[in-house]
């Protein structure tokens, strides 16, 4: 992949998939250095733990870290914040991301997306071609045969590359266990103030506002995915180690994105966001 592109970056969210991806990339190039930076799109609604972890992780691994923030996009008028109690900056980050790709002249953005996450992602290519506007056209994808990846593009176009497309959630956890990789504490059981809302456990934080029917509680929870405070649901869990999580997942009856408010907006929420440049 590196041989086919000039300027790449890993889209680093601080979640387990992008951590795994960075880990793999570092190993792939060892003993040479990974020839691209980490790019984090900071929504301003990230968990504080994620940000602390991000900085520490990049320092420990000796990776270059580039941060671009949605706050800046709002400040300079590129986007307008959603309002209301279910407001989320999830769709806004696509704009910041596209701006960052243009600014850094990236021709490849490497993501930790996996096909088992969501229906629309199941049809994603490993080398996913994006047009000048960063948009994904699911009806005009390049066929991907064998392990031959066509990374040819016109100026201004770029690729999203998903090296761990074929991994499942459980594969990621097995690998984390095998490599004893560091992870944000959010993934492990900890006591936290939450509210019950619409069948989900949301973090009790001013960012999520209050709705009728919200019931606050203090529970021992962990997170299966790490996104924004506003759209990441917690689950009640006593899983304190990676091994606990693996056995919990093996018996789980919901998917990891089941706790993502952003996917519950509509049945094709993910596909619609991807068409607009989401990764």
């Amino acid at each position: 992949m590196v041989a086919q592109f000039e300027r790449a970056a890993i889209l680093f969210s601080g979640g387990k998939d992008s951590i795994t991806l960075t880990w793999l990339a570092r190993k792939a190039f060892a003993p040479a250095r990974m020839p691209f930076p980490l790019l984090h799109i900071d929504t301003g609604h990230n968990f504080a733990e994620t940000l602390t972890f991000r900085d520490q992780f990049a320092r420990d691994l000796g990776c270059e870290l580039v941060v671009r923030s949605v706050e800046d996009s709002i400040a300079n008028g590129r986007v307008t914040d959603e309002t209301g109690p279910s407001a989320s900056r999830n769709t806004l980050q696509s704009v910041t991301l596209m701006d960052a790709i243009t600014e850094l002249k990236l021709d490849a953005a490497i993501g930790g997306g996996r096909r088992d996450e969501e229906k629309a992602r199941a049809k994603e290519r490993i080398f996913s071609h994006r047009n000048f506007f960063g948009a994904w056209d699911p009806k005009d994808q390049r066929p991907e045969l064998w392990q031959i990846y066509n990374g040819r593009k016109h100026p201004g176009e770029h690729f999203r590359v998903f090296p761990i497309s074929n991994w499942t959630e459980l594969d990621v956890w097995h690998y984390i266990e095998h490599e004893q990789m560091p992870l944000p504490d959010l993934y492990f059981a900890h006591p936290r103030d939450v509210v019950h809302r619409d069948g989900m456990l949301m973090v009790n934080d001013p960012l999520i506002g209050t709705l009728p029917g919200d019931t606050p509680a203090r529970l021992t929870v962990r997170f299966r995915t790490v996104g924004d405070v506003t759209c990441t649901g917690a689950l009640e869990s006593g899983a304190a180690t990676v091994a606990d999580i693996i056995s919990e997942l093996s018996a789980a009856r919901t998917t990891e994105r089941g706790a993502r408010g952003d996917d519950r907006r509509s049945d094709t929420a993910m596909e619609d966001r991807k068409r607009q440049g989401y990764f």
Partner: protein
Amino acid sequence: MDLLRFTTAGSVDDGKSTLIGRLLYDSQSILDDQLDAVHRASRVLGEDRLNLALLTDGLRAEREQKITIDVAYRYFATPRRSFIIADTPGHVQYTRNMVTGASTADLVVILIDATRGVLPQSRRHAFLSSLLGISQAVVAINKMDLVAFSEERFHELAREFRTFAGALSFRSIDVVPVSALQGDNVVDPSSHMPWYAGGTLLNLLEHAPIDVPPADAPLRLPVQYVARPHQEFRGYAGTLAAGALVPGQAVTVLPSGAATRIRTVDAIGNAVMVTTTDEVDISRGDMLCDPGRRPSVMTRLGAHLCWMASGPLAVGRPYLLMHTTRQVQAFVTHIDHKVDVDTMAQVPTDALGLNDIGRVELSLAQPICADGYRVNRTTGGFILIDPQTNATVAAGMIDDDRPDATARPVSTDVTWQPWNVSREERERATGHGATTIWMTGLSGAGKTTLARALERRLFGRGYRTMLLDGDQLRHGLCGDLGFSPVDRAENVRRAGEVAKLFFEQGSIVVCAFVSPYRADRDRVRSLFPEGRFLEVFVSASRETCRSRDPKGLYRKAADGSLAQFTGLSAPYETPVSPELVLDTERLSIEESVARLVEALAARGVIART
């Protein structure tokens, strides 16, 4: 735990999505929130029961049209094995996705609707799967509930499929009667079909052997990346396509042919990084190989193509060929035939369109190191890219039987030496430029006449010249060649190489060859520097050529004693943008020669008189 990759295929409405949904549902691979979403969506679509097809029909357009339009990958696991399903569309215009899904699969599940029988689309998918090198097929005869679980109907369809598939190259075929809608024989054995003693679909999938390359296969390591973190380290990274690597092992670097030994190996699975004992030149696109059992290094090859673009394949047009980690320019020189997938008959054609499968011959600007596709899918498969749109337009599978005249092995242990006396020095000595004038056209158009007159004129003025004529070369250098497209291509290739030698010697080389194929002519053009190759289309109507008939060939062709005669029984591809067109019906020999001399003067090859 091991992993089986399989692909599913079937016609529209065979119930493929329902079958996959059932497989996932009954193997408890569907989680509660996914099920909730499907319940909601089923209600929205006004269906009264859980529509399992909705588990896999992901995209909005598919929901609307109720068909699958792209390859979707699904993941599930049983205690025995993990699975990746490449779920591919049944609709005819998406055959390219079927090929994509099949390219990485170990096994194919082919669906047949018990009420409708073995449809053309099922045959197409069986044929494609076999062509793409899948060795195992599981045929699921679906909708058995609609034929009253009839044993007779099942055997009838199984027989029909096995008869058809006998001509394909599957190593094993299992046939299982199922009802995806009701779940019979998908995961759980059916109580409705006590006459069926075989395994359920899941059972067959769990026990299918997984293709592993033989441990003693010859080494193939396409170099993907050269890592040079510091002066002391130069590592070559890639994914092992076959064989094994150990320190001390002797390897050959292709296409250069350099020999070295492996010093160190770092490997995670098939991803390896090696260093070598000698400082040999190795770059991305090279291949490290077993010195005793090398792949073919080829610039011409025969292959089956699956055409995946809406615009047709253009013979003679440059495409980009991606093979392992190498990209080279390629032309299709000839389309042998296309395959009628219903009858598997070979149909002569001069065009391949979307979803057509054809056998073609290709000519490459630089060599690739390849095995036959049946021997190794990685080193035997390639894609073609349209250099204008960058779209992937074809999947190619390299023939196994080689070498025939088309797959000419390249001498690998030859190193290019610069000419002792350069062409520029020779040109200064003679006082004029070297150039090649290539006259193409039908027999009888006037090529030889014009070529002889032109050479005589130039020689008379003191220029260094040489004349190459088709008939002359066929008496000696090309005496072993006939008139098939392959032999014609080779004839023109040799003529071009000879012209190149005289060109380097400083001559104005006048060539007269029918050279009917555009791609062959373009290959000759590529041997010369820009501006030093003049393609001259010598034209005359077919009637005029026939009446001139200087060699009596038209008469012979007319009485049937001459086959493959250009213009009558073999094609002639008119030049698209030749440097000069000479219509010999309107122009005299003197006028034509004057135009040729002017063209040379205009390019500064010779002085104006």
